[in-house]
């Protein structure tokens, strides 16, 4: 394997730079996926049938907690990648661990939120609006769950194998994914919750 030392570790082999470009293209596909979900949500937003509307079920408190946790985790993973570039294995692992914990906290609030919705009668089957809402939030939530496992696996690999071109590459790609989920959440926060509560 040819290693180019003039580049950051995550870009240092040809395979690594292929993987990063491939992942950017994958994120392009993910943008289309969420764009479709948003389009569906905006189309069905006011088609509530006999069920509740957004203004009736949204609560600001858990949403603010979720937003705070996820945005912070996105900042922390940035610190993690910075530490990785400095070659500090221990700091990288600490920041990655904090990221995952914050992500798990986010997920906890989201699960609470879902239970709450179902409790007050806004289930998947209630109306077109609830179906679109829960599918959009659920798709984002599933991405976070998958990300938690993925991040955990990478953390274990950094611990076992150190910061190699391979693990650095995986960490960097994971950070792209995590920032992406954060951006999607900003859209969810602005255009689903805030818009719905107004």
């Amino acid at each position, binding site marked *: *394997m040819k290693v180019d030392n003039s580049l950051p570790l995550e870009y240092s082999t040809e395979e690594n*730079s*292929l*993987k990063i*470009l*491939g992942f950017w*293209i*994958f994120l*392009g*596909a*993910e943008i*289309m*996926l969420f764009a*479709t*979900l948003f*389009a*569906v949500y905006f*189309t*069905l937003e006011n*088609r*509530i*049938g*006999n*069920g509740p509307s957004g203004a009736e079920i949204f609560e600001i408190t858990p949403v603010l907690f979720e937003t705070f946790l996820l945005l912070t985790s996105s900042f922390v993973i940035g610190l993690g990648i910075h530490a990785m570039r400095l070659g500090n294995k221990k700091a990288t692992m600490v920041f990655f661990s904090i990221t995952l914990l914050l992500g798990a906290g986010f997920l906890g609030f989201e699960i609470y939120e879902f239970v709450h919705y179902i409790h007050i009668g806004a289930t*998947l*089957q*209630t*109306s*077109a*609006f609830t*179906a*679109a809402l829960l*599918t959009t939030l659920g798709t984002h939530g599933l991405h976070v769950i998958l990300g938690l*496992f*993925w991040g955990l*696996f*990478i953390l*274990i*690999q950094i611990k076992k194998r150190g910061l190699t071109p391979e693990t650095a590459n*995986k960490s960097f790609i994971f950070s792209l994914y995590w920032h992406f989920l954060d951006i999607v959440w900003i859209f969810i926060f602005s255009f689903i919750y805030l818009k719905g509560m107004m």
Partner: protein
Amino acid sequence: MEFFKQFAVPHPSFLIYGAMVSIGLAMLAIVVGITYFKKWGYLWREWITTVDHKRIGIMYLLTALLMLFRGGVDAIMMRYQLSMPENTFLDSQHYNEVFTTHGIVMILFMAMPFITFFFNYLIPLQIGARDVAFPRLNALSFWLFFMGMGLFNLSFIIGGSPDAGWTSYFPLANNEFSPTVGTNYYMIAIQIAGIGTLISGINFITTILKMRAPGMSLMKMPMFTWSAFIANVIVVFAFPVLTVLLAMGTMDRLFGTNFFTTDNGGMDMLWANLFWVWGHPEVYILILPAFGLYSEIISTFARRNLYGYKSMVASMVVISVFSFIVWTHHFFTMGQGALTNSIFSITTMAIAIPTGVKIFNWLFTLWKGKIVFTTPMLYSVLFIPLFTLGGVTGVMLAMSAADYQYHNTMFLVAHFHNVIIPGVVYAMIAGLTFYWPKMFGFMLNERIGKWTAWIMSIGFLLSFMPMYITGLDGQARRMSTYSEAAGFSMLNMVSFVGAGIMAISFVLLVYNIYYSIRYASRDIGSDPWDARSLEWATHTPVPEYNFAVIPEVASTQAFWDTKKNGHELFKGKIEKIHMPNNSGWPFIMACFFFVFGFAMVFSIWPVVIVTLIGILVCMAYRSFEKDHGRYISVKEIEETEAKLRGAKK
């Protein structure tokens, strides 16, 4: 027993039982055959676990040919059913299932893999690379596609086929109007195959952007690679829409959500809109690589550079953008209002402009060329007028006011077959004939090939021209029969005869393969057509590593320049080559997907959960796996090269 009842076919008939028995016997024969010849190990080592783009390509090809015949049998059954008024060969339910599966099989399980075969086989060779960017993902793409295809075809004998048309519009596709599990198969099988297609889209874009030979700037890529690049960009942007759409359809059918229902706020037109937001770009995903193949073939056999290279590229880019803003033309009659219809009418007609540019570029390439009428060239030359005919009727359909007359009639059916058959199918067969010697080391027989092309064209005209007339006279599509008084019988009989003639041409194609395997010369060298681009610069058969030395390129016709203008292609010396290892995991993961899909179709939740965990475990395993590939030593490469050079003489 109660449990097994759900697997029974809901509308059994003699035909379905016959098919079951023949499928069973064929499977048994394959298993016994492989066991008898002790080929299981070979199959596993050389094919199932392979990550070589050429072998994966050939597996796509075999799947596509298999599905061509399955979809073809559907077509013949439909034409026979309609050849006489009040025919009772197929009842209306069975007819619904046949036209539904015909559409999906031909578009998604025949044309798509056929094109992906060309992507796989040609892109790395045309850009002078040793493999695709992510060889193992490539294997996963194939196996996901294959399992989706297998699951879809299973519907025929277990549980019932989808019956709501290939577009599967709601509310027709909901549980009330489509009560069998057929539409569940549609939702889930296409989902699995679609994930495979999306992955390969990402793979090919990365390959083309990052792995081109030195000197090959984007504007020096062969035209097929350009068309493949644009098609894959469309894949990456269109297929996620399908993913979401099918997921919502699945939820409506299995979990009782209200996305596309007619009460509780559901909106059935949302399905139609999103389906075509994916579906229209999808037809360009099919046609652009076909255009790419025609460009290669026409310039090779006109013995000229492709005329208007830059305008070819520009027109494809324009088409790819427009493909996303025309979807409403598929349902002008379904209540958008005049303004919306007018806008989509204009964008649709505008697509004729870049397409026209391409037609003229091909004509100008032929102009003053030293044309050699080989079989691939014959298909290409037949394509130009036939496809233009289809394009012109497309512009007729694009006029939204006039479309109220044509909508959902046989006129539409005639139109899209008129673009897909000369556009895509001819390109596939032409490309297959053109690249056959590169793949297998012998040429297909030219005499039989030309007969095939002419018979196919006559059959095509006889089958589809009458539909324009019956369509204008008001024969609706998807009607299983009509009365004698309607007066369609004569023309429909002509259509049936045409379909029979087309069937003969496909049989002739198979005979040609058989004949050429037996009699064709193996002594053809590596460049039998006197072609122009890099894929012909390496040996036949292509060694595992494609090029011993990575070529250096200075024009769009690098190999031609090497032969005629003294360009030096291979400047470096042989070094050890890094290759990826084979892996069984893509196959195993796809098997989990298959069982997962089957369990989803029948809502067997414990199996769904277990297989889902299986899929996740495969992903976790892949995350932890250390696999740095292997090296082919210089000595090995030199031996292979010497052997292949020797074999050439």
